[in-house]
């Protein structure tokens, strides 16, 4: 019941986010209307980071306590994290086409996000290939911990790598000093995405719980 209410709340927040993104936030001077995709792009990646943080939490929790609830949290959060990372990459790509003139560029941020996507896709593949639930939980938890610890390392290596090969050619997509209305629109959409994520997570965990119950009753 509470989950359903959360779903409605997330829906309303998303509508509000859309309204603010198109109605309230001003047209960005340099990029035009294209820039509005930022209100999808930035909240997606922030939500993905939240998800991967929860994968780490669930993984450590599972190894420490062997409670199945922790494993369900990690697995559900990982699926959603991959989903939101995918949204980030696709929206970034759509944004990149008119701005940079190409669907894909080895921009530092896009590249790190793509690496993140691959790491956690591997995590999900691993889960699919281990049948025994207890062993699956342990293995996945180890990968979840390695993946999370790797995020800052990936971030720095990719950033330096870009700096080395193409010093200061492509500017970051965001305009440097973010105007107040843009910040507000971002904030509203970020809250909406977070609510949506929590709603999805609650549903996904519930499904996982029913699955587990069906298997070992």
């Amino acid at each position, binding site marked *: 019941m509470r989950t359903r209410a959360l779903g409605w709340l997330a829906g309303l927040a998303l509508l509000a986010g859309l309204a603010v993104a198109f109605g309230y936030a001003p047209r960005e001077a340099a990029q035009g209307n294209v820039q509005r995709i930022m209100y999808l792009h930035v909240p997606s990646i922030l939500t993905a980071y939240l998800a991967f943080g929860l994968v780490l939490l669930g993984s450590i929790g599972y190894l420490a306590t062997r409670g199945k609830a922790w494993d369900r949290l990690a697995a559900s959060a990982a699926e959603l994290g991959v989903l939101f990372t995918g949204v980030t990459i696709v929206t970034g790509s759509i944004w990149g086409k008119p701005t940079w003139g190409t669907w894909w560029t080895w921009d530092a941020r896009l590249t790190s996000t793509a690496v993140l996507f691959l790491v956690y896709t591997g995590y999900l593949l691993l889960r699919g290939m281990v049948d025994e639930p*207890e062993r699956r939980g342990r293995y996945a938890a180890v990968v979840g911990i390695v993946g999370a610890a790797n995020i800052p390392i990936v971030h720095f290596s990719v950033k330096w790598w870009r700096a080395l090969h193409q010093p200061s050619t492509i500017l970051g997509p965001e305009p440097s000093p973010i105007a107040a209305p843009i910040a507000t629109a971002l904030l509203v959409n970020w809250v909406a995405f977070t609510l949506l994520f929590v709603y999805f997570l609650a549903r996904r965990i519930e499904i996982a719980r029913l699955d587990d119950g069906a*298997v*070992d*009753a």
Partner: protein
Amino acid sequence: MITAAGLRKSFARTPVIDGVSLEVPAGTCLVLLGPNGAGKTTLLRILATLVRPSSGSLTVAGVDALRSPEAVREAIAMVAHGSYVYEDLSALENLRFWATMGGHDASEGRLLAALSQVELEAVAHERARTFSSGMKRRIGLARVALGRARLLLLDEPFTGLDRQGRKWLSEFLLAFKGGGGAVVLATHSFEGALGVADRIAILAGGRLVLDQPAADLSRDDLRRLYDDLTEGSPR
């Protein structure tokens, strides 16, 4: 040495161990009989901390085995289906590896003495790849003899042993009991096992259908009971 109550284990909804309680005091041997598929190996693996039971409680050597399996592993030694033998190492090198891993004295004299007990000193320096399964099994027994275990868990230990080997194993088990150790021996054949048993349990369909002092049972009684009790048991 072992106190188990209400042990249960299911694999994908099918119960394999279905409410087993047993008691093995120090200095005694429990022989676990039962047809193939009765759950003997799973029960033994639960006692060895290799499988976590779905429910129930288990105390081994005074330690809660479900909470601190590490501490239990200090006290037990196992002879399982697999012999834990590395094919590319010699018999002696295998013993050196496992003795060191177990934190025991791995001096060559001691290792050779253990090998001669299982009559493998002649092939001490030959690679295990050329050994028969019975010889590998004897390496496993020598490995156990090197340790300081207080509880021995044996799964079909007489398989692959000749008359001499069986005799040695029986004597070893009697001496081990005499030193205050406890033994759980799972087998589907009565041969050899009855000589060392203090208590006999029959496992069928994941339940203990009999658990009696060995002295109360003659071999013929046991044979009859075994056939009655295991008849029509699942799988």
